[in-house]
């Protein structure tokens, strides 16, 4: 690195790398220079003029957000001239501002309010009639109140640069300049709400949240999104045990400032009117509400009967329940019920990848790697639709570091726009296409390969062999669907693999086998909806379902137990990159219980000892006994993401590509759960680039 530059800011000696902007050099030294239009990672604007500073030997005040440091530079950030200029900028900004703070969503967390408090100008000399524009609705979730807008262009840039969407633009000029949708009167976009979050004032407001409460009336709970496998941190604003808002207040998660529509708005399934709040039991052919005691006793009795008879019992676990729940469930089933008939909907071939990587270390990419890797290869995955955070990370990597992106997909994807090379390859022909990129790929200094469900079984081994042949460090991400798909695999929700991918002695039945078996006596489904697309072979099986809603599977059940969602419990989940993060309970829903508690109560009822069913206790056991999960607790406790380091060795498993199938959700769907989100249902079809793999 080139020599550091030494300069003086407010009489303090500061050193910074050449090219550092004064605003950032000051920030690093603990000196905050006010800024509206400057935003880390987005292009420079120099529009708001809040960051003006005095620089010795420069006659005019300079914008610290565009001025690179120089050797010997002497900067004043709070001189009388600077303070006076700042105050005048605020006075200008407030001329046409409605000052409706008392009813504005942003009141209390507004950057303009904060600045005016700091620098005065609260009393205006502007006594003319203000320019008014009526509020507009840009989309079901995005509203715009032009008079509050200070034209910092953050929204325009986050949409264009950050999201790669470019739905927002600037219309008119001069004092009547406005932010507006580029497509005329409505947004054609990801509906991610990033523009709302990034808006320093209350100009862009959220359809889900607007005018509902004030920020200080909520409790803010940082937890992990309940939807896709990317594992974004979302901060839930809770008032009176209801979630009112999802956003990204402190940007501390692995997702930084990012959230997609699901993490920001699709918490609303929690209070959907069809939410189950009482156990149901089939009586006279109909499902009827019963007490927990009655329901649990009935399930325990039937399970014990089947067990004693030696009858066939199948268990289907979930892609969304916590690691603790998955671990406890498989232990309950294996040790308590004496069966290996346990499986889950496998959405990507994680086990094959781990097996293929036997003997190497550090070959599983983290979310952060996607932002720093020199080159990325995306195979058979529409990231913008199905892995929104990963897509965001790679895009940011391209923008900030010029990452070279290669794409091998059956159809067009958003990454095409900036990819070094995009290749279309039909399902099954991906590896041949990657082979065709060999000469380019081996010239890279490092590579992260992401692959979707089309690459499974034997193909995963071949892909890794191909990666090895490039002679450069290669890391991998096996794309999976849901918030704990990876954890379900790691925790052994397989008939042939125990937690940590240890082989089981006697493999049990796979999910399709269970569903097809005509002699199945009991089926226990936890947080899954297998009967949405399949028929149950057994006519007489006793079916128990734990779920939030009366899904297709729950409708066939004999007993339905209402479960708590991810936002209503604690525990840990593991994201697509194998990072373990902790859920924090935000609300409670009357009548529903966390799955772990349901398992615990059942084990008690059945007099089976599967251990304590407190999440912390179960996690202790996971850390002790599951390969790779001995993660540092302080990292989790402080909201960090701890990488799980799975087994480094060959896994003796039968390649079963037929069992791997992504649900191919779009940006606006989330399996069966997504159907119960009003906001997801309110937006139109996901824009562009979608293909069904």
């Amino acid at each position, binding site marked *: 690195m080139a020599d550091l530059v030494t300069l003086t800011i407010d009489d303090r000696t500061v050193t910074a790398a050449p090219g550092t902007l004064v605003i950032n050099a000051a920030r690093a030294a603990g000196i905050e220079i006010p800024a509206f239009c400057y935003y880390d990672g987005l292009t420079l604007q120099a529009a708001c*003029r809040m960051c003006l500073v005095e620089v010795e030997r420069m006659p005019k005040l300079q914008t610290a957000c565009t001025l690179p440091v120089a050797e010997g530079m002497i900067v004043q950030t709070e001189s009388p001239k600077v303070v006076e200029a700042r105050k005048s900028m605020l006075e200008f*900004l407030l001329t046409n501002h409605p000052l409706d703070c008392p009813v504005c969503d942003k009141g209390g967390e507004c950057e303009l309010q904060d600045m005016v408090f700091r620098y005065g100008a609260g009393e205006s000399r502007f*006594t003319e009639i203000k320019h008014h524009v009526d509020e507009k609705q840009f989309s079901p979730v995005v509203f715009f109140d032009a008079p509050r807008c200070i034209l910092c262009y953050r929204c325009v840039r986050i949409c264009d640069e950050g999201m790669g969407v470019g739905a927002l633009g600037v219309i008119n*000029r*001069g004092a009547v300049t406005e932010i507006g949708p580029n497509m005329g009167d409505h947004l054609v976009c990801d509906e991610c709400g990033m523009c709302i979050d990034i808006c320093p004032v209350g100009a862009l407001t959220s359809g889900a949240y607007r005018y509902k409460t004030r920020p200080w009336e909520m409790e803010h709970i940082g937890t992990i999104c309940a939807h896709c496998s990317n594992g974004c941190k979302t901060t839930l604003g809770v008032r009176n045990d209801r979630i009112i808002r999802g956003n990204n207040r402190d940007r501390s998660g692995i997702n930084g400032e990012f959230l997609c529509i699901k993490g920001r708005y699709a918490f609303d399934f929690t209070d959907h009117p069809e939410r189950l709040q009482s156990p149901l039991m089939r009586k006279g052919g109909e499902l009827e509400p019963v007490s927990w005691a009655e329901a649990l006793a009935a399930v325990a009795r039937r399970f014990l009967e089947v067990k004693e008879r030696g009858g066939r019992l199948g268990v289907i676990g979930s892609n969304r329940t916590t690691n603790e729940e998955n671990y406890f469930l498989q232990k309950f089933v294996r040790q308590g019920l004496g069966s290996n008939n346990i499986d889950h909907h496998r959405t990507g071939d994680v086990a094959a990848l781990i097996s293929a990587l036997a003997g190497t270390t550090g070959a599983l990419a983290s979310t952060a790697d996607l932002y720093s890797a020199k080159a990325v290869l995306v195979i058979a995955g529409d990231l913008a639709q199905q892995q929104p955070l990963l897509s965001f990370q790679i895009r940011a990597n391209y923008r900030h570091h010029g990452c070279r992106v290669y794409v091998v997909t059956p159809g067009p994807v958003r990454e095409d726009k900036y990819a070094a090379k995009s290749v279309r390859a039909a399902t099954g022909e991906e590896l041949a296409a990657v082979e065709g990129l060999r000469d380019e790929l081996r010239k890279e200094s490092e590579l992260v390969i992401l692959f979707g469900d089309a690459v499974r079984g034997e193909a995963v081994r071949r892909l890794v062999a191909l990666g090895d042949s490039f002679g450069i460090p290669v890391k991998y991400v096996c794309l999976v669907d849901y918030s704990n798909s990876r954890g379900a695999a790691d925790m052994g929700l397989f008939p042939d693999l125990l937690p940590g991918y240890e082989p089981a002695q006697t493999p049990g039945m796979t999910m399709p086998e269970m569903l097809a078996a005509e002699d199945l006596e009991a089926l226990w489904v936890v947080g899954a909806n297998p009967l949405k697309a399949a028929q149950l072979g057994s006519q007489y099986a006793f079916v128990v379902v734990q779920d939030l809603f009366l899904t297709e599977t729950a409708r066939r059940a004999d007993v339905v137990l209402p479960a708590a969602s991810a936002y209503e419990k604690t525990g840990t989940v593991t994201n697509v990159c194998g990072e373990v993060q902790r859920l924090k309970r935000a609300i409670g829903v009357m009548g529903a219980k966390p799955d772990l508690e349901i398992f615990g109560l059942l084990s008690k009822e059945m007099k089976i000892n599967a251990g304590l069913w407190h999440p912390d206790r179960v996690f202790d056991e996971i850390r002790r006994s599951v390969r790779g999960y001995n993660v540092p607790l302080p990292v989790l406790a402080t909201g960090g993401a701890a990488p799980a380091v799975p087994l480094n060795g060959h896994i003796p498993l039968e390649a079963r590509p037929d069992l791997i199938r992504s649900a191919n959700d779009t940006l606006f769907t989330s399996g069966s759960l997504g159907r119960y989100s009003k906001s997801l249902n309110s937006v139109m079809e996901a824009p562009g680039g979608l293909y069904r793999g």
Partner: protein
Amino acid sequence: MLYNEPSPLEVKILTRRFGLENSQSLDTYLATDGFAGFRKALDMTPDQVIDEVKASNLRGRGGAGFPAGMKWGFVPRDSPKPKYIVVNADEGEPGTCKDRVLMENDPHQLIEGMLIAARAVGAQAGYIYIRGEYRYIIDIMDRAIAEEYERGYLGRNILGSGMDFDVYTHTGAGSYECGEESALLESLEGKRGQPRIRPPFPAVAGAFQCPTVLNNVETFCAVPAIFRDGAAAFADLGPPRNGGTRLFALSGHINKPGVYELPMGFNLLRMIQEVGGGIRGGGKLKAVIPGGSSCPVLRAEECDLSMDFDSVAKAGSMLGSGGVIVMDETTDMVKLAVRIMQFYQHESCGWCVPCREGTLWLEKVLTRVDNGGGRPSDINLIDELARNMLGRTFCPLGDAAAMPTISLVQKFRDEFEERLPKSVPAGDPRLVVVG
């Protein structure tokens, strides 16, 4: 077409073909030493071409007066990127109408100037960004360009020299701000007409982020003469560091308004009296805006002045674009301030806070004062708001709005005071709401 009688005091260098029959045609151009300068430049190395322009003391005619040769010298000629020549023909500055007559009467002179610039920096394409209101001039330029292609003065292997050069016209859409060089480039690229962050300057990253020579029409039009007659001859026309002649657009309360080519450093009072035929109706001179509406106003007693960049700057104003607006004693300076601010308010692109909000606010306060509804505090408010804009905006348009305003309040404060209502309402004046 000529819009005014020429003056005998004119020194006709750029306007030498004005009034000739078919002055727009290539034949006329060639018959009157057309392309003599370019042919000379073809025999010179790029460095020699740039040195020649430097030696001529030609300074930018668009407003800022930056030395043209120096600007050309900033172009990184060894850059692997293509280089561009861009002509600023947006001519938006109120009081200015010289580029129009230059293109209308002698379009080939402009193209020759571009060719010499292209020779200097190794450019292969040039754009003429013409304000949309000059529709007919776009046609004139397009015809001239077509003629030159036909006769081998544009296109491939020009005059057998091996040099390639293409020229395109591009239409503005009615925004004054698009005359600002970086906003012009954005607009040329098909984007919103708002300025860019500088540095980098156009010489390094201009059109399509490639090295670009961007000059005013008049600047380019002066170039052929420099090569035809020699840099020294051009430099000698004006005072030190201010080479050549200037097309002054005289307007306002004078008898003979028009565009006149006069040597740099021509005395302003003489210009008004002898070239412009004096104040209309034998009236008395009150004030002059010497270089287009962006320049601080000069009082009559400040007008005994050499019209070159440095002297006018010393007098506290600017030579600007050469638009000399003459005002007699009937002029209402408050109304003038209102009118100027209306223009800048309308033309502010809205990108930055102080200009967007400041021009609107100033327009409102000035209008209020003009309408007789002002408050005693308003005069200081006007001055303060303008000073709060000055030097703090993203591009010089904010300064252009602030500077004349500050000078008007400073020099004609009494007129503003007279406009205030005679009886001030009792109590706190801020409680009076004026719609």
